[in-house]
């Protein structure tokens, strides 16, 4: 039995394939080939690497495969000048290794379908559109075009081959023709059309400028986003002071008091994490707690708080811990 909470989906590397141009394609499965949590076309996951790094990658496969064939596929380009995540994956990760992954996040809302899709990808940024393309082909929404901007070689050419054969891909090679004008790649008419982009930040900025006049719901810019914060985004940081030990712990904006305590190794009973079960009740001594629970009476709140949902209106909050 685990003493610490399980925070990731445990997967095993089932296959590693060459994707060309320094890219490796990893197929991840459940150890027992159980179904994996579902995802939307173009979604991404965090990989929790054995060396402690956490890196985010788009899922390349058709979402239906997550439930029918129980696997996630991610393509990783080895970045020699990167911060070490892609090197750890490409150089030291092997078939059979275990990798914890997050629940999938993000992706495109393709239901109800638009009439036409135009996507722009920069290099390895093509990955989310592989998943989207598989979905659109399978569901019969064939009117889509994918512009790929690449220095010279096309990334993941073997995965793109069916789309190239069908004439859905337009390749822009910057080594030969320079960088294309992103605005010129977008269709003139906006009616029933969804446009999307994934690539380096400069390309995303160009795309944002070029699509400024488009309705927001018709534009998808793929940025890896962190999981949504459960609390008010305007929440301020504060310091927890533990009266018995004298320790001081910072609580970041949007972080729960409970997670700040747990991350510092303080064991506190908890269960619902929504302020109703009463498991994580803590006595407070000084400061101005913000109570968001639904179990404590006004009288109880004078001396207690529920750490899973409570915040602080004061810069310092002293707990009887």
């Amino acid at each position: 039995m685990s003493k610490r909470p399980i925070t990731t989906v445990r997967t095993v590397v089932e296959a590693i394939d060459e994707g060309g141009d320094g890219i490796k394609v990893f197929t991840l499965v459940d150890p027992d080939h159980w179904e994996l949590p579902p995802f939307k076309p173009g979604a991404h996951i965090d990989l929790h690497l054995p060396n402690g790094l956490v890196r985010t990658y788009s899922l390349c496969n058709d979402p239906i495969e997550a439930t029918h064939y129980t696997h996630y596929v991610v393509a990783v380009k080895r970045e020699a000048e990167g911060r070490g995540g892609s090197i750890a994956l490409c150089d030291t990760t092997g078939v059979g290794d275990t990798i914890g992954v997050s629940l999938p996040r993000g992706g495109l809302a393709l239901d109800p379908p638009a009439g036409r899709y135009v996507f722009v990808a920069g290099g390895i940024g093509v990955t989310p559109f592989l998943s989207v393309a598989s979905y659109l082909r399978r569901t019969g929404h064939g009117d889509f075009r994918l512009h790929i901007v690449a220095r010279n070689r096309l990334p993941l050419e073997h995965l793109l081959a069916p789309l190239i054969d069908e004439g859905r891909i337009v390749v822009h090679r910057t080594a030969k023709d320079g960088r294309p004008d992103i605005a010129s790649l977008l269709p003139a008419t906006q009616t029933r059309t969804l446009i999307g982009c994934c690539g380096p930040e400069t390309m995303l900025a160009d795309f944002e400028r070029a699509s400024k006049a488009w309705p927001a719901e018709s534009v998808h810019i793929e940025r890896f986003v962190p999981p949504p914060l459960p609390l008010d985004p305007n929440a301020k940081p504060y310091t927890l002071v533990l009266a018995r030990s004298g320790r001081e712990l910072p609580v970041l904006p949007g972080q729960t008091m409970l997670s700040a305590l747990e991350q510092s190794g303080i064991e506190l009973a908890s269960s619902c994490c929504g302020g109703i079960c009463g498991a994580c009740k803590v006595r407070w001594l000084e400061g101005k707690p913000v109570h968001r629970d639904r179990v404590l009476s006004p009288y109880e709140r004078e001396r207690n708080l529920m750490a899973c949902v409570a915040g602080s209106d004061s810069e310092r909050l002293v707990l009887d811990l």
Partner: protein
Amino acid sequence: MLDKPNAVPANTATTASWSGVIRFLHITPRAFLPMRAMSELTLVPGKGITGDRYMIGSEEGFYSHKPEEGRQVTLFELETLIALKRDANIELGPHEHRRNVTTEGVPLNHLVGKRFWLGETLLEATRLSIPCRHIEEITGKAIFDPLINRSGLNCKIIEGGVVKVGDVVRNAA
């Protein structure tokens, strides 16, 4: 004294009269993974469900770092799924509430502390289940609040056996 809950002794004939049925069975081997529909489950007394994440001795559930003897099998009312749709327009499938057994016609909230038959197995209800934020993370649906006070039942397995979809659920009193 008529307004006191214990003023009128319960009529045992009335309290024993309910009878329900198993509509769905689900398990999953690990935290976060989708629940898989099964036609039957094997309940091991004092341990849990074969293949499920909360089987005592091989726990891999989201709450497994908090051992609980009374969490060997969990139940949920089909009527709650219907009410969520009716009252809050929330479509929640029997594979999404993450309890093992979906029952129909069983007053789960009335059974805390009592024993009842689930097919050929005998269960003892230990406490009401409570909703948790974890389920919203997994389903992507805002169901925490609507599930308060109707999030199912946690039970110990007193007598084990194989339970099947369609089996009768009845009071053991």
